[in-house]
């Protein structure tokens, strides 16, 4: 415990790195995942198949292997040689997480019943109006809970970056763990940081849900 207090700056740096990894990967995955979802619900068969293949392949590969590709295999191909570790970590996390974001967004779009759009078209709304005031608002509401689950899992998954030399929270815990009675305390302290992040995302999602709740 004294170690932790003496070197609290290292702990805070690790926390900051975890936050950076989570926020950057979260943003990239949201953008890329939404694009993928657009491919998967779009009218063009080839792009639909491509999106489906990407999701099937990535979802069934362990994240650790995605990291192996980015950190260990890619340099053999001459890629990412001088890239900073944080960027490589964000790339690996985003490649993996966007497949799950895609599925969450797609399920949100599918949750809106066809009748809603048909009714909107029947009363003469244009495409933009149909999307903007009928379909998307309902899809956003349906997408919040699964998306929050994905982001929470992603935040916990950033721990895998520790295996590849990023000194984020998990890597730091490994550094402080020293076979003493303190180890349990150290574990609980580092676990608490993750719990704070998870609770923040969870609270945000519940807030959004409450705010967007509509009478049905």
């Amino acid at each position, binding site marked *: 415990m004294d170690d932790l207090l003496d070197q609290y700056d290292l702990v805070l740096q690790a926390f900051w790195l975890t936050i950076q990894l989570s926020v950057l990967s979260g943003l990239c995955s949201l953008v890329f995942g939404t694009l993928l979802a657009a491919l998967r*619900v779009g*009218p*063009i*068969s*080839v*792009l639909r198949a*491509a999106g489906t293949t990407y999701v*099937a*392949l990535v*979802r*069934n*590969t*362990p*994240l*650790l*292997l995605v990291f*192996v*590709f980015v950190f*260990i*295999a890619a340099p*053999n*191909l*001459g890629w990412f040689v001088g890239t900073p570790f944080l960027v490589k970590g964000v790339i690996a996390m985003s490649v993996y997480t966007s497949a*799950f974001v895609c599925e969450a967004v797609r399920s949100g*779009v599918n949750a809106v*019943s*066809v009748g809603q759009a*048909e009714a909107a078209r029947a009363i003469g709304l244009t*495409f933009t109006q149909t999307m903007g005031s009928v*379909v998307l608002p309902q899809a956003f509401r349906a997408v919040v*809970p699964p998306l*929050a*689950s*994905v982001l*929470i*899992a*992603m935040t*916990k*998954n950033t*721990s*895998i970056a*520790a*295996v590849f030399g990023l000194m984020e*929270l*998990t890597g730091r815990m*490994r550094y402080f*763990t020293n*076979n003493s*009675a303190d*180890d*349990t305390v150290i*574990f609980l302290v580092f*676990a608490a940081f*993750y*719990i704070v992040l998870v*609770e923040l*995302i*969870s*609270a945000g999602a*519940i807030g959004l849900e409450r705010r967007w709740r509509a009478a049905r």
Partner: protein
Amino acid sequence: MSTVLFDTPGPRTRARHRLYALLSGVGLLALLGWFVWYLDEQGELEYELWEPFVTPAYVQVLWEGLLDTLAMAVLAILLAVVFGAVFGVGKLSEHAAVRWPSWLIVEFFRAVPLLLLIIFLFLGPAGLSSYWSVVAGLTLYNGSVLAEIVRAGILAVPKGQVEAAYALGMRKTQVMVTIQLPQAVKIMIPAIISQCVVALKDTSLGYYVLAPGLTTVGRQIWTEFGNQFQTAVVLSATYIVVNLLLTLLATWAQRRLVGERRPIVHPVDPGMGHGGPGLS
């Protein structure tokens, strides 16, 4: 085909979509072709680099790694089912003294990263071997997720069943054991198989503590041959095939046990956990 996003396309739109499909197909094929060409250019398609994966001795080692991985995942899931049943029922208990600790344990292990847990079990006071720290970590994490599935499964049993059982004069434990749990298990089996996919993928974390399994074997192979890319491709392909088989099994079980109607307990997204506290 009419969706919420666009109306049923007419002949001209369909023709346009065919054109786009053709163009994007050509573009994707070109990209793929360029990638293969690039790999060849970099010498990544050389036979020596792929040789270990057709050499019987190394295939044998990989096969044993796969068996280790599967054994760890299966063992962890079996233990997790027990853990999940105990704490899932515990969360529904009428006694606050049982309910609260169950809630705390389940929420804690769901919110903590698995790798953090494995490192703690491996290096911390528990001092487990690499094999058991992975199995125990997987058990605690997946058990907590399954506890939620068990709870949802029990709650999904129609209320009339429970009321009828009480009306017959059964007691609380009898109702749980003879009425609620058997029906809940039937609803839960597809979700449990989906959770196997999660556990199987997470066994790859054994890499960090050098537990036996595919990723550790892979590391040995690429240290010996310097074929990191090829090994990663083979390992991913193995995981993908096994996971797709498991997914097929889950779908089959879903149809067989739950019927065509929509699943009451939604299968957990492989690898992405089941949300955190407060979300279900």
